[in-house]
């Protein structure tokens, strides 16, 4: 009968100097956090970017020809477009809106918003306080209202005109901008642009698919581009996505370099302090390949722990940040987590080279020299 006994070498070596291992895990998690947090911030901005479209109740968005975004976009349609759209078979309702960037002021405090001229006052988006705006009134996004100190009943100034705050909506603001609603005719009057609307929000009859209706509208109404809500939102997300791709890539590279350096440093320091142990193991018959695997396993364990810590941290941040700063929303996406995981795997492979090269140079006979 043979008794087999195994010794958890990698674990014991890692736990030999707990402080160093913990510091390594913290360093790697900080490096991966750079990648995860940046992605989560941009994903959060993206989600809020389409929050208005997502909740607008529109199945199809009609814009000036060639236009399929709202953010930082200009679209101008003749007011009659809404009437022409309503006449298209399959349309249940068409609502024209004006959509312009504006500065809202209250005393010395200011905030940039997309001001939406909508005769329904933003319906069907739910109000979190107050009521829809009448003439001379405005509905603000809650985070901006809080920042300006503009509670329902108070006044703000837009384009030099005073508006009374009638209500609040919630969840539409990002760190870049906010949203506010006034009556469309009033906004047109203030801007002196009668007869023009920015977009027409279209509801489809239940039996008509949105894509089919969009195609019908484009065929029937000249000079317009009709997009389904999903396609429109996708296009909006692409704007921010394309703008930030290079920055995200740069951050991934920096996170990778720092991760490799930290993990490599920890693994290399650990290997140096355990050279004698490795020499003993080699003298006892441990093959070079197994010794390398042992060193790599330690790096892998440290990186995995660092990755999990970073993930936990970003998850906690995503949970608590909105209550501290309502416009700073972090969205954790599976794709971004997978990307960070692949960075972590690359870090492991690159960082493992440091201890592996050192272990490869160990002479098993050195253990008998002193």
């Amino acid at each position, binding site marked *: 009968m043979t008794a087999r006994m195994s010794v958890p070498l990698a674990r014991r070596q890692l736990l030999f100097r707990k402080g160093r291992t913990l510091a390594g895990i913290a360093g790697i998690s900080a490096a991966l956090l750079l990648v995860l*947090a*940046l992605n989560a911030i941009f994903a959060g901005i993206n989600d809020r970017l389409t929050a208005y479209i997502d909740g607008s109740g529109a199945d199809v968005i009609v814009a000036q020809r*060639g236009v399929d*975004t709202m953010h930082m976009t200009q679209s*101008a349609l003749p007011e009659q477009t809404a009437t022409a759209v309503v006449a298209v078979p399959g349309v249940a309702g068409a609502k024209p809106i004006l959509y312009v960037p504006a500065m809202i002021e209250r005393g010395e405090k200011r905030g940039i918003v997309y001001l939406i001229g909508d005769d329904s006052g933003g319906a069907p988006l739910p109000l979190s306080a107050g009521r829809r705006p009448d003439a001379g009134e405005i509905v603000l996004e809650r985070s901006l209202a809080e920042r300006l100190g503009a509670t329902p009943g108070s006044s703000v100034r*837009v384009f030099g005109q005073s508006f009374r705050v009638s209500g609040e909506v919630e969840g539409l603001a990002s760190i870049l901008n906010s949203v506010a609603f006034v009556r469309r005719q009033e906004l047109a009057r203030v801007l002196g642009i009668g007869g023009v609307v920015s977009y027409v929000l279209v509801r489809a009859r239940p039996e008509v698919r949105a894509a089919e209706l969009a195609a019908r509208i484009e065929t029937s109404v000249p000079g317009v581009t009709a997009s389904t809500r999903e396609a429109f939102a996708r296009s909006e997300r*692409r704007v921010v996505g394309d703008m930030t791709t290079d920055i995200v890539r740069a951050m991934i590279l920096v996170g990778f370099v720092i991760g490799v350096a*930290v993990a490599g440093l920890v693994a*290399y320091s650990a290997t140096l302090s355990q050279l004698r142990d490795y020499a003993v193991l080699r003298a006892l018959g441990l093959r070079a390949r197994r010794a390398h695997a042992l060193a790599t396993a330690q790096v892998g364990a440290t990186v995995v722990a660092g990755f999990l810590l970073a993930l936990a941290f970003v998850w906690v941040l995503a949970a608590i940040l909105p209550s501290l700063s309502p416009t700073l929303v972090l969205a954790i996406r599976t794709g971004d987590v997978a990307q960070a995981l692949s960075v972590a795997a690359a870090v492991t492979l690159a960082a493992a080279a440091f201890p592996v090269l050192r272990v490869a140079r160990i002479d098993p006979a050195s253990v008998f020299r002193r």
Partner: protein
Amino acid sequence: MTVPVARRQLFAEPAKLIVTLVAVAAAVALVLLLAGLRRGMGEQVTLYVDHQAPVLVGQQGARNFLSQTSVLPDALIRDIERVPGVAEATPINQEYAMLRLHERPVLALLIGYDPGKPGGPWKLASGRAPSGSAELVLDRVLASEHSLEIGSTLEYRGARLRIVGLSSGTSGFMTPLAFASRTTVSALSRRPGTANFIFVRSDRGVTPAALATRIDRAVPGISALTRREVAANDRRQFVDPFSGPLFAMVALAFAVAVLVIGLAVYSSTAERSREYATLKALGLGGRALYRLVGIQAAGLALTGTGLGFLLALAAARGVSVFAPKYLIAISAGSVAAVAASALAMAVVAALLPSHFLARLDPASAFRR
């Protein structure tokens, strides 16, 4: 005879030294690049305004040039020109243009100006300024990114615009510039007979602030601001929202740098506990031991910071060549702040092994 113990300990493992310095340099470079990107964004967003006349007139309530709706009837130009101290009033139309290039939305800032008057591209790399309708001058960097050249056409808001010139010094990560005639831009917006802003040049001897106040008082329904005020407001609007996340990234990079230096110094101290115990047994005082550790930490911090600075400069240079739409403006202020941080890193990192040294028993040097 003196023995350079700190130096010898640092150089005992060159590979470890290099890895430590790379990690610190990467963290420092990250801090400098992020701060530089933020500053660069601020400079880019005011690129157009910085090249225009010193006073800007917009619709009442206007505080910004970017992301600000302002509609002024053309008739207002004459009212402004009548104000004493006004040398020239130049109307322009301006809008964000979400161009569709290679099936992707690409943002530009489209300026409509009256050909032959100020407000157009200040430097043409090739081609000519727009003279007729549906003609466009596009930023050279934006054009090259999308393989557009003089003679190319692009569709925007249902119109076909033909590129007749390429401008240089007009690129920006969020707002590369494009120029067309005012009639072209106002037709696209269906707002003929209107301008978005009016830039005003003052007579000699009249300060921009005084002229802005005069115009504000003399002409109803407008806001007159100095170019400097407008630029500051635009910078604040674009750059401030990124300050929080950017600060978090910088704090994270700083923490990584401290951790790396601390880790390197701590592990080297722990590995050499026998050497330190011997030094203690030979009579080296606690303060001298801490100094030894402090010198190592400071050496790593300062060298890593120096390397990080060089790395950031090289990266900024690389970005200006390979991705010219981004501007990374590394300021003397941020370099000074990073240098001060390096010293803070050294102090914090040296604290980690000091506890270990304080507990080290000199007798342990003789135990085996």
